């Protein structure tokens, strides 16, 4: 049984069909990379999976249980964590408190501090545990968000543009930690990114969205080299794009 499965998911905003019958599945302990041009529906798909938006039509299943239409906080309890395109850390709280907020939100008792410190150590921020989130860099905020997502003991983590605008060293740390937690803990990741080369290296499978539909999916290197994917992504035919065609 796949960890996550989408069956014909549609999402309409007024007259605009942003997701138009999206179907795919991903197994436990896998990284699914999602690429697509701006406006292809990537973030909307994450918002549907996360419960921020209710799909207009279709089904979302987490290990066979239908979860579409549930609230974000109830989906967290089912094991779905997420990070945002622009990191949404609690600026006036310390990094440690940002992670502990998860245990507060989930109503868990005890052991939170040790676990939070362990996760900050994992992402190389243990020395900043007492620093206010407003005082760390954008890249470090992304690491905090990632650690916070792991703090929820997730089965599935949704990551929206985790590599955008961050220092290469932080990017390397993040990619290594995603891969390690995937392999060691069986966490499934759905990673949306414009950075195709990083995503090809990281992902087990790659999916390309275009105009709300799945254009291609499968092996990352094969998908990323398909002419229709390149055309959709770059907005022009392969033959007329010397950077790719050459």
């Amino acid at each position, binding site marked *: 049984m796949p960890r996550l499965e989408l069956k014909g998911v549609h999402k309409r905003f007024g007259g605009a069909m942003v997701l138009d019958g999206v179907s795919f599945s991903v197994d436990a302990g896998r990284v699914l990379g999602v690429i697509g041009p701006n406006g292809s529906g990537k973030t909307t798909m994450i918002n549907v999976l*996360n419960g921020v938006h209710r799909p207009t039509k279709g089904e979302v299943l987490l290990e066979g249980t239908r979860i579409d239409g549930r*609230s974000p906080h109830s989906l967290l309890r089912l094991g779905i964590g997420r990070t945002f395109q622009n990191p*949404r850390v609690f600026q*006036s*709280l310390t990094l440690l408190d940002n992670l502990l907020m998860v245990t507060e*939100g989930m109503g868990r008792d005890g052991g939170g501090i040790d676990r939070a410190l362990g996760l900050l150590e994992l992402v190389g921020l243990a020395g900043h545990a007492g620093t206010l989130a407003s005082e760390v860099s954008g890249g470090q905020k992304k690491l905090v968000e990632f650690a916070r997502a792991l703090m929820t003991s997730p089965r599935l983590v949704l990551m929206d543009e985790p590599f955008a605008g961050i220092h290469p060293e932080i990017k390397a740390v993040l990619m290594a930690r995603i891969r390690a937690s995937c392999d060691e803990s069986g966490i499934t990741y759905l990673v949306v990114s414009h950075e195709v080369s990083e995503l090809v290296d990281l992902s087990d499978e790659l999916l390309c969205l275009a105009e709300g539909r799945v254009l291609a999916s499968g092996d990352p290197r094969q998908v990323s080299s398909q002419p229709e994917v390149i055309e959709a992504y770059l907005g022009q035919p392969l033959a007329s794009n010397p950077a790719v065609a050459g």
Partner: protein
Amino acid sequence: MALTAAFGATTGQLGTMRVVTTVLMYVVLTESWTVLGGFGGYLNFGMVLFFGVGAYTTAIVSSHAGITPLATVLAAGGVAGVLGVLIGVPSLRLRGAYFAIVTFVLTLAIQQLVMVLGITNGALGLYLKPVSLGPRASDELYYFIFLGAAVVTMLVVRRIGSSRFGSALVAIREDEDAAEVLGVPTTRVKTVAFVFAAVVAGMVGCVYASQLYYIEPVDTFAFSLSLNVVVAAIVGGAQSWIGPLLGAVATQLISQELLIHTQGVEGNLVLGALLIVFARFVPGGIAGVFRRRRVAKVAV
């Protein structure tokens, strides 16, 4: 707080005791307001709505049941709390200024309703049975009721501030979407905080009506009460339990002093100026200044 209480308890002047009693009443209201308004960051301009509903509940129930008005305090808090649920559940789905506007508009709407309803005796208002005590004993009774209520409310709000519920409210203030994603049932948490303030305001309204033994819609639903609470919280610092205490004492002592010596308009101007100065230059309020100084001292 201790100084204010001691001041009220030891003075022989009834007028002074009444001023301190009013200050204590605002301490209770502002403390309860700060749970949603300060910890959660949602500006509630509807405190007088629940205060007024509590006062009218007391007047109606006590006259129909033939009991002393103070005995209806739970009914007053209960009716205000139910109204809080009815208003909070739909309106707390709104954010920022929209929620503040709803609480403001509903206050005006309920005031107009009270003016035309038969059970509230319209604009003429209702009389209540006064407590069977002399003027001094009566004033002492209400002084000690509000003193006790202020202490209890502060302890409760302090406890909330360090609880899981308080942390959830802080998360909502910081970033509501992120809080929801991290497992905080945001609408439920906000509603509980809103209803807490409504219940407290309703109970305060009961004591106020009992103390005055006459209520009518214009003064009982005066928007200035809601405004005074918000100003006190902002001046004192709304993000801790100590801020509302400092703010309520400071603004009410200024306000009451100006009321004695002026026509009242000057008092509003001073409070308005205080609000602007604190919102612009001292966003953490008086409590925030002390907190920063303490942090700086530790850092040195």
